[in-house]
């Protein structure tokens, strides 16, 4: 049976979909058979970031409604044979999700794949709830700022009390923090919360720190998840995070502010 991992955050715009796309490619590159599911019904984005938006014929809601089989709706990634995408519906809204329908799809995916990665929408409503309800593990994406941290706290609370694991009295959903848009320079200046601050407030360990990096935006726009950009700091940081999620011990990188060179100090930058 496969493992269900939810990528969630509470707050919008912190990098859930970017993270889902990169983790999915990272797991696939490590040889895992993986399906990534977009739960943001009505605002589908994951297919864009994954670069498969032109090939979406059937979506998640079609499968739930029985318009097509799961196999028909899964889009095979062009780069990795062992990676499939289940897109969200662009036309329906989140009420199209039903607990039984989602449960059936998730269970079918679990029997087929090693990892089922659920890309949660922002908020704590229906879509976000179903994305986390079936999870075995959670990657909570946090920006180092107060509102993102507070929303993550709320999501962690809901997960620990309302997930299927909590309801059935199983061991709790395993929680990980992924800090995104981290800027060591701003942390050093004291304008940004540090890893320690975030870990202390949330009481959960950080599994990866993704530095703020211009490559993230260009990667998203071109439909190539940033993890595939070996030259970017963010891509390498995601590769490390995938390794840690798979149980490897990898030291944290990109945590120190870059030292300015002699000329940069002379002329400013």
């Amino acid at each position: 049976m496969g493992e269900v991992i939810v990528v969630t955050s509470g707050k919008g715009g912190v990098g859930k979909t970017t993270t889902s796309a990169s983790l999915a490619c990272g797991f696939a590159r490590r040889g895992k058979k993986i399906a990534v599911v977009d739960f943001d019904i009505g605002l589908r984005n994951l297919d864009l970031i994954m670069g498969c938006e032109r090939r979406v014929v059937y979506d998640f809601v079609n499968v739930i409604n029985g318009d097509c089989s799961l196999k028909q709706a899964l889009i095979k990634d062009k780069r990795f044979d062992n990676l499939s995408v289940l897109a969200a519906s662009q036309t329906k809204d989140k009420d199209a999700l039903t607990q039984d329908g989602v449960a059936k799809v998730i269970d079918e995916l679990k029997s087929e794949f090693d990892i089922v990665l659920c890309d949660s929408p922002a908020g704590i409503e229906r879509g976000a709830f179903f994305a986390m309800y079936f999870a075995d593990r959670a990657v909570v994406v946090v920006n180092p700022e107060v509102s993102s941290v507070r929303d993550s706290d709320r999501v962690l609370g809901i997960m620990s009390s309302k997930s299927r694991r909590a309801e059935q009295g199983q061991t709790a959903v395993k929680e990980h923090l992924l800090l995104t848009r981290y800027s060591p320079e701003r942390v050093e200046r004291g304008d940004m919360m540090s890893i320690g601050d975030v870990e202390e407030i949330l009481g959960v360990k950080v599994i990866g720190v993704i530095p703020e990096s211009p490559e993230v935006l260009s990667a998203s726009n071109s439909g190539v998840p940033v993890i595939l950009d070996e030259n970017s700091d963010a891509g390498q940081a995601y590769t490390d995070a995938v390794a840690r999620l798979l149980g490897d011990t990898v030291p944290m990188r990109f945590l120190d502010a870059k030292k300015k060179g002699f000329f940069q100090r002379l002329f400013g930058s």
Partner: protein
Amino acid sequence: MQGLLFTPAFELKSAQMSLMLLAVRRFDLDQLQIEIAQHVAKAPALLKNAPVVLDLGQADPKPTAHQVTNLLMRTQVAGLRVVALVADAIGEPLAHAVGLPALTVGPRRKKSDEAPAKPTESEAAAPTAPEIPATADAEPGAEASPPEPEDAPAEPVAVPPLLLPGPIRGGQQIYAKGRDLIITGAVSAGAEVAADGCVHVYGRLSGKALAGAAGDVRARIYCLSFGPELVSIAGNFKVFESAPREIAGKAVEIYLNEGRVDVRPLKA
């Protein structure tokens, strides 16, 4: 001249006291004296010469003023001091007749005090079963099996606290009804923890904490790291926009001091 130097010889302050009710069921003077004496003998440190308020609302048969005077004397002999009568239809005229004040008991207080205030028929009292806390997001510790009542002893047994592992996260509400609440972890901003007894937080307190939720002014709040949004004791609350520097992040005790919520650091 005298006006300048005048300082009043007294101050009239408002204060809240916690008193026990002596709720009489069967008005049998001899039996009452014996049972009260037995009860006081069981916990002399707590009860010897304790002030109590006499509640005759349920007394059967209804006593006369003369009988009440007699009861006051016998109660004193047995080890309790009646300082007032409950001001209900029966108590009010009797209080007048025996020269004691009549006190109005709030409906909530009266209910919550009924348990400890039944010295006249304690033997039969079985420990009340612990209740499952009512919470908004059935919190993580809810499955923790409620402590089993031990084989019904005659001695009153302490009600076990509601013990939860932290963290209690934003949006979660915990209420320990009729007992203390112990959280072995943090209480996040936006979370609410409340108890009828004391609240202990072995971690950082960033949310709201309410002790003595049913009105017990003796209830207190303890936390390892102070930084709450609000603390309340018996309905007296204090909001903190930011914690004062002397106590921020410190281990503190929060208590009611003459009707006002006070915070003091715990000595290391």
